[in-house]
């Protein structure tokens, strides 16, 4: 801990004063105890009460001189607090890294090919975008159905899909059903559904021109 000039001067004065007046109080303590016994007998209820109070205060963070322990051990408390904070941050980062950013299980050595994600997200849904990045980090290929017709997207998937490959579909229920019908494949995840949400302009256009979904 850095101390400024004034604090250093104060420390110097404290040392000077303490060195100049050392005390040995053993003799007086014995005299005091002898005298006190005449006035307050042992096992007096009040004495027990006082002993209890002092003991409780000592246990509750005060030392024998009544000084708060954290003051005396302030440096250690400071270090301990920062250790806990840094450890928490590290664990949080570690958890984030291992859960979200780790490669997919099939992308580890000896595993299968990376998965394919069909992303037919609409721009008005931020959480879909987040999911897309997460799957990208985890080593999935992305087939973006916004850039293809659905039929073209299916072709792309079929080209990319070797045996045993995991396919994840993020999209509306109708899209998922379309793929299930056209491929006869059951996909692993259906994340978003249309219910409870207004149709987008492109969805309305699709309906108008009789495009599925």
């Amino acid at each position: 801990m850095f101390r400024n000039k004034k604090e250093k001067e104060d420390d110097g004065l404290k040392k000077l004063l303490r060195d100049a007046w050392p005390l040995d109080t053993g003799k007086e303590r014995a005299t005091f105890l002898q005298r006190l016994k005449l006035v307050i007998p042992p096992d007096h209820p009040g004495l027990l009460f006082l002993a209890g109070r002092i003991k409780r205060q000592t246990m509750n963070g005060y030392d024998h001189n009544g000084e708060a322990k954290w003051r005396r051990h302030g440096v250690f408390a400071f270090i301990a607090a920062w250790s806990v904070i840094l450890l928490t941050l590290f664990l949080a980062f570690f958890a984030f890294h291992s859960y979200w950013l780790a490669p997919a299980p099939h992308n580890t050595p000896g595993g299968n090919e990376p998965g394919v994600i069909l992303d037919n997200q609409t721009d008005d849904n931020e959480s879909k975008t987040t999911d897309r990045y997460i799957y990208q980090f985890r080593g999935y290929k992305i087939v973006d159905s916004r850039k293809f017709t659905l039929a073209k997207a299916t072709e792309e998937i079929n080209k990319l899909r070797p045996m045993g490959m995991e396919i994840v579909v993020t999209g509306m229920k109708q899209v998922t059903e379309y793929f299930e019908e056209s491929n006869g494949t059951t996909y692993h995840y259906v994340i978003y559904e249309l219910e409870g949400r207004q149709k987008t302009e492109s969805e309305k256009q699709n309906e108008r021109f009789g495009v599925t979904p």
Partner: protein
Amino acid sequence: MSYPPEQEDMISGCFDLIFPTLLRLTGNRETALDLTQETFLRGWGKLDSFEGRSNISTWLYRIAVNLALNHLRRNKKISYTEIEPAVIATELPENMAEKRFEMAAIRESILLLPPDLRACIVLHYYEAKPVDDIAGILGIARGTAAWRLHNARKKLKAELRRRGIRN
């Protein structure tokens, strides 16, 4: 008949809190011993009124310091010849007369301070009490305690310089 160990420890703990402070405030062992006993008895009598809102040591210090200040106001003349002769004489060898002289001068400088300021010096430098605790013990505002401590420090340093002692 003696106190059980736990009670004796507690009483000794209280004694170790109060006696050194009173000794440094009064400069006299017998007076300090009497005032320590008086503190204990006063505290004993007022035990029922102790509500536990402050630390118990602050409560005891407050009684002790008030007793000492009242005593000093009543007896304005202090006999400096009674200031702690025993400890110094046994702790230092004969050839350190100069050091002994300097230590006595420092103690005298403290005892020359007005009692209110002396209490601040004793509580802060010997009992390591922060300004908040000093204010609580003396029953004054924090700002007043800080000002008194500042003033006491200034006067003490001036007196030490006058006697040729530098920290």
